[in-house]
């Protein structure tokens, strides 16, 4: 069983938002909502400055509070540990939105909660997620953590990386290469 993960190389990402826009088209994300977003984390004072640039999305947590909290199992782990919402089981109680420490979810106008799916529909066809495909800087990489030959695996071996809010104990599978 694969353990899908994504990395965002903060050295390469320029926060151009191509990922955000490619995602919106690929997944028909409604106006005003987004499944991924970018952050410029600015540190320091003039002229000693640094910016951490990255593209964030659902972390497909291995210990996902949204899944734990969902009364109907609409939020669930798919093969490969991808966290997905089955719209047809979603009752719109929004407790998953409340439980997600990353504000990765939104309420879809059609009455169900939606979020990044790691483009599972593409992954099933052996394609990269839309955001990974479009990224002009090659900052995003998607793959199987458990496969030693996968790019994500090798990157995480070779480089220092961090996840968001580790103290939440959600065990994210979205890694940011420092």
């Amino acid at each position, binding site marked *: 069983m694969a353990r899908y993960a994504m990395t965002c190389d903060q050295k390469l990402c320029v*926060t151009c*938002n191509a990922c*955000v826009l490619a995602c919106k088209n690929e997944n028909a994300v409604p106006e005003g*909502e*987004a499944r991924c*977003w*970018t*952050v*410029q*984390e*600015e*540190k320091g004072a003039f002229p000693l400055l640094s910016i951490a640039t990255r593209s964030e999305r659902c972390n497909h947590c291995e210990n996902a*509070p949204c899944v*734990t*909290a*969902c*009364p*109907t*199992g*609409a939020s669930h782990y798919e093969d490969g540990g991808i966290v997905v919402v089955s719209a*047809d*089981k*979603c*009752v*719109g*109680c*929004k*407790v998953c*939105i*409340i*439980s*997600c*420490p*990353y*504000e990765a*979810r*939104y*309420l879809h*106008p059609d*009455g*169900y909660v939606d979020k990044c799916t790691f483009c599972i529909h593409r992954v099933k066809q052996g394609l990269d997620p839309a955001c990974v495909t479009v990224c002009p800087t090659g900052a995003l990489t998607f793959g199987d953590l458990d496969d030693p030959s996968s790019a994500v695996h090798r990157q995480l071996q070779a480089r220092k990386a961090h996840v968001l809010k580790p103290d*939440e*104990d959600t065990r994210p599978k979205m890694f940011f290469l420092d």
Partner: protein
Amino acid sequence: MRVTLDAFIDRAQLKSVGSLFRVSPDDPPHVRRGKRGLSVLLVLALLGAVAAVTALLKGHHVMGTTSEVSWGVLIATYVYFVVSSTGLCLVSSLGHVFGFKVFEPIARKAILLALVTLTVGFTVIATELEAPMRLALYAVISPNPSAPIWWMGALYAVYMVLIGAELFFLFIEDHGKAKVAGILSVIAALAAHSNLGAVFGLTHARPFWYGPLLPVYFIASALMCGAALIILFVWLGDYFGNGKQVRPENEGLLNVLRQLLALFIGIVAFFTVWKMITGVNGGHYHKYEVTMASLAGPLFFSFWVFEVFLGVVAPLWILLTSARKSFGALALAAGLPMLAVFVMRYNFVQAGQMFSLRPVHGHLGETFHYQPPFKGSVEGFLPYTPSLVEMAIVVGAIAAAALLYVGATRVLRVNPEVRHG
């Protein structure tokens, strides 16, 4: 013994139920006022019903809630009602379960009101859900026992059945069975209610809610509401039903409740104080922001005026002074917290959400620049104002609860003596 419908319903009253709203010349003025009041409630309830249907049709499109602040005033209202229900069940159980004689006369009314508030509460949450139908279905065919909210639903369903049974046995005067059902519903009430607390208390993502004390706090505030509501309906019942005079047989009860209410308010105040102290000193970014919002921020007014003054200071003061002599004052002292608790619930639900979980400033002086742009203000504050539909549902729900109760007490044989005498 044979159980007939007459055990429950007073047919004569059923026919004349309309007279509740019909003002007749020989009514004393305060009764006329009361009846007009009921008619107003009726209108509000109907408006609420229209709003409820709209909400069920259009979901969040007619709500003020957003993807960031996704729980609004309806959640608060739901909590308000189920807390009341729980409180009524617990306090009234003192009588027919734990055998405190003074409480026995009001058992039927208390449980009846518990059932009414619970039903109204469920209706409100149904309007808040995007697809209540699916919940009914999938909570059963694909339940997720790891979800506090699932347990809350399940346990409240059980609780509903149990208080239903309890009420039934009380009507047929089967005090043995009533006691058993009573004990069970107390347990269910405690379980369901602490689970409601857990729905908030277990969300690690929301530091303001997270914590083991929350379920206990919920029970405490339930007891406060229970006591307050019983005072209110006993007093109102006598005010309109007994020429503004409290019936002698109720005086003892009200005196006990006066002391209990003071005690419960004290406990709730105690929790609130510590929540604020830990919030300010806990040094947790998110929790601190929110606490300060209550103490000195956007929630300033509703916190200090409603939660603190109207919810604690004023009622306690009245309870310890004029309420000793005047039942009218006692009723006021019971009414204020019921008003305050609603605001308290609202603030509580909002406080957990009003600051984005995406930081705007980091502890080490970082600033975070988001795109698409951050939906809240620059400081990370997320706005929410209830829509008209939401407000109409809230008002309608409260009106409906009152009407149902008054109507039911009129046509049902809620006073044991009615049958004997």
